[in-house]
């Protein structure tokens, strides 16, 4: 049971978002810019960073919700998403994305873990300052979202198909202005 009285039946972050719409607005607008707006990093790659961080933080709801959306954008199956989570260095993703995921993983442990060498490697593989900025902020933001979801002990459906089945609708709905009761 959640630590506070949340509207019933809403999975994961939707409960606290319905509880407090005033903070929900900037949280969702931030997610919209970071994950969906025009960017040289694809929506699929950005959702993959969000999924990877949520996996490292062991947040079941976020890693499955965003893993499902990543899978939808990347037109892959969940075993590909699982490969990235478990062994990104041997997964079938670009060297640049691997370098960005390495930076993201350092951010997850603590901002000071990001090294000049990690950043230099990403730049050498073609990452721009904006891409490095957005990678760090996506990783940092999911360290927030994961803690918000788990710190209030919210409810999450345990069947992974739940997230896969709704991924297409969630991707189309986007993050800004969505109805958490939906």
């Amino acid at each position, binding site marked *: 049971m959640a630590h506070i009285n949340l509207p019933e039946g809403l999975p994961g972050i939707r409960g606290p978002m319905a509880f407090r719409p005033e903070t929900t607005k900037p949280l969702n607008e931030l997610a919209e810019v970071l994950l969906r707006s025009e960017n040289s990093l694809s929506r699929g790659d950005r959702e993959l960073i969000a999924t990877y961080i949520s996996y490292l933080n062991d947040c079941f709801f976020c890693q499955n919700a965003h893993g499902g959306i990543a899978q939808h954008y990347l037109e892959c199956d969940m075993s590909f998403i699982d490969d990235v989570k478990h062994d990104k260095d041997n997964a079938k993703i670009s060297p640049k994305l691997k370098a960005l995921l390495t930076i993201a993983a350092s951010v997850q442990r603590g*901002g000071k873990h990001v090294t000049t060498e990690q950043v230099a490697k990403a730049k050498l593989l073609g990452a721009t300052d904006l891409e490095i900025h957005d990678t760090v902020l996506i990783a940092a933001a999911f360290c927030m979202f994961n803690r918000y979801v788990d710190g209030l002990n919210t409810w999450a459906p345990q069947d992974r198909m739940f997230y896969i089945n709704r991924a297409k609708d969630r991707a189309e709905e986007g993050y800004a202005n969505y109805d958490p009761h939906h």
Partner: protein
Amino acid sequence: MAHIKVEEGVPGIRSLVLFRPETGKHLYELAQVLLRDASPLTAAERELIATHVSARNHCIFCMSSHAAAARELFEEKREVVDCVIENKDTALLSDKMKALLTIAGKVQQSGKLVTDEDIAEARKHGAEDRDIHDTVLIAAAFSMFNRYVDGLASLTPTDPKEYEPMGKRLATLGYVLPQQQKTNGTH
């Protein structure tokens, strides 16, 4: 030096939101709503939670600037801020705030560490749903802000005096998105 090309001489998160105002404006709006809008917790108490989490994350910029804001807001009780940073027990802290700071400290490590007992302890001392919600989200948000500021190695002033005007500004004006300087003025 920062990991990306930001405006020189601008400290901490201010340099980052000037680099990317599209995300910056939502980050500042979040801080304003969380730390200043109506809440059962005072602005001073909320700045104290932000300071506590930033200290535990060893983020010197966030800890120093929010500690400075908290000192301004606590006025004659400002000593409480240093007690929290140094983990010293103090009568200036209510039992409710002690319980909420414990919850914030758990969230800083991982949301999963918050137990039913932690919540029951806070409720015993008068905390209601909104106190608990705001505590968890402030702690979670500073787990983000701290990583953003340090993950890009933004400029961190080392002289404590430099944070005093920041604290005064945050205490009086709140969270206002910095604007790009057209001239070579001061920030």
